[in-house]
């Protein structure tokens, strides 16, 4: 549904997006993770036909973003929620949506139905005749989301949709995105909220001018960093330590009678470690698997780049 190949954007001598290549399937939620200034918004703007690319290719539903005729078709099938909501403060919620509905060439009936549907869904129907300028930040963000959906787009580009929102509003917006996911909308989500990406996205790309890594949250967690096993003992003594050293373990650390060790193949290695501890008279209270979190993966790549 969304394809990019060596997509590059330069501003003068500064390369903001460097040879970005990825593929997003229809109905997939793609999390585009990266620090501030990584080039996420520039990428989204190129894909939404708002700014041109310097080189490379990008296609949305088969349409070329750099072709003028195609770009109009692309803009009809995508919905954009920019970083700043960009609502008209001097228009009511209803008129804001109606204006965009007209520009997206929705019929009068479709506009009426969709405005009512989305405003009710987002809890703003009672405020439909209130000026958008009087809305709270959370309400504005909800209204901006409704605006991006007014023409029932197949693809949604959401730029930091929960940034600067209070926890309750963030949850409402996040839940709404999850509802859209159920409707099989293709969603390109710019965020630096790792928790949000982990909960919502099918696929995640970690990006900092260049795409560092791409995969499902599970794939990133499992494959990128080493797996670890944590073993809580009643007491750690020299006999146990000697037995473990004989196993030539990787990165063994001990903290408050808790052993943490890197394992490559936990299914084979964990029983051997447990046997060695028990044989040395150790009393195991519990044993747990420690996976690398998305945060670990993110920091590894983003810091690695620096």
């Amino acid at each position, binding site marked *: 549904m969304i394809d990019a190949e060596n997509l590059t954007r330069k501003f003068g001598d500064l390369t903001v997006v460097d040879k970005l290549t990825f593929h997003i399937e229809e109905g997939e939620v793609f999390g585009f993770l990266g620090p501030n200034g990584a080039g996420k918004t520039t990428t989204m703007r190129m894909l939404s036909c708002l*700014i041109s690319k310097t080189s490379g290719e990008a296609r949305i539903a088969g349409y070329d973003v750099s072709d003028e005729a195609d770009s109009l078709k692309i803009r009809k099938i*995508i919905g954009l929620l920019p970083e*700043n909501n*960009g609502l*008209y403060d*001097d*228009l009511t919620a209803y008129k804001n949506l109606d*204006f*965009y509905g007209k520009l997206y060439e929705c019929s009068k009936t479709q506009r009426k139905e969709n405005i009512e549907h989305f405003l009710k869904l987002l809890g703003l129907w009672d405020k439909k005749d209130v000026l958008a300028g009087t809305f709270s930040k959370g309400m504005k963000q909800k209204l901006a989301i409704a605006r991006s959906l007014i023409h029932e787009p197949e693809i949604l580009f959401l730029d930091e949709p929960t940034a600067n929102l209070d926890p309750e509003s963030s949850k409402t917006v996040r839940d709404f995105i999850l509802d859209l996911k159920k409707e099989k909308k293709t969603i390109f989500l710019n965020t630096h909220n790792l928790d949000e990406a982990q909960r919502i996205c099918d696929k995640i790309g970690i990006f900092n001018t260049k795409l560092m890594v791409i995969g499902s949250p599970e794939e990133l967690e499992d494959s990128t960093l080493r797996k670890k096993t944590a073993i809580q003992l009643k007491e750690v003594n020299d006999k146990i330590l000697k037995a473990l050293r004989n196993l030539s373990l990787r990165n063994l650390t001990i903290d408050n009678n808790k052993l943490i060790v890197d394992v490559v193949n936990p299914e084979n290695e964990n029983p051997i470690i447990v046997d060695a501890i028990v044989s040395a008279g150790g009393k195991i209270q519990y044993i747990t698997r420690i996976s690398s979190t998305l945060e670990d993966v993110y920091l590894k790549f983003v810091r690695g780049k620096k």
Partner: protein
Amino acid sequence: MKLWKSWVIATKDFSTFREKKNTIYPLIVLPLLLSIVLPILIGGIGNLIGLIDNLIGIIGIPILIKGSSSKDITVLLNSFSFFYIILAFILPNTLASYSILGEKIEKSLEPLLATPITDTELLLGKSITSFLPCIAIIYFSAMIFMVLSDAITYNTIGYLFFPNWSMAIILLLAVPLVSILSIQLNVIISSRVSDVRTATQLGLLLFLPFIGLYIFLETSVISLNIINLLGIFVILSVAVAIIFSISKTIIQRDKILTKRG
């Protein structure tokens, strides 16, 4: 090109302008004030000239300027008509700054440009936004000016000075063209700067040639007769065509969004 989309953009702007009273009121007040003050001024000057004529007659000095009263008034009426060309530059310039830069400042340009509208449809919409209200205000105030001027000067000059061909050319040809020119220039400026005041001030700088023209009129270097007015019309038409072609190449959504001013 879908003209109705430009109209949708313009009507949206009209709705938002209603809430921006600080922007709109001066645009209405200035022309209305001129349309009332200028005829009163002409009346006052006419009375003064009449008074001087009477005094000169009484004291028996050869009346060299007798009969100049009605001529002076018609000259004044003509030169005051030129104010409507000035208004046609000032008013759309202010409105265009708010219309285009307002979107940029309120960050509403990005979602707007993400809709399936072309750059030309957007620019046309923004031009209509600035053009129509200004033309309406100018025509309305010109009507008041003409009616009041006729009422005040009829007794002195002995006929209704307005309407006449000069004013017709000013209102029907020069005013629309100058408005379009002002809007086009402001569109170019607005795409390069990031605040309304700068855009308005830069736009008004480009107004200097019209001030020069007005000085030429007042110093009788040129007069506002039909031939000269048609000459101004031709020059304006060429200027509008040139500025329009420049603005079409300069105004691209890419540049508008990435230019930070």
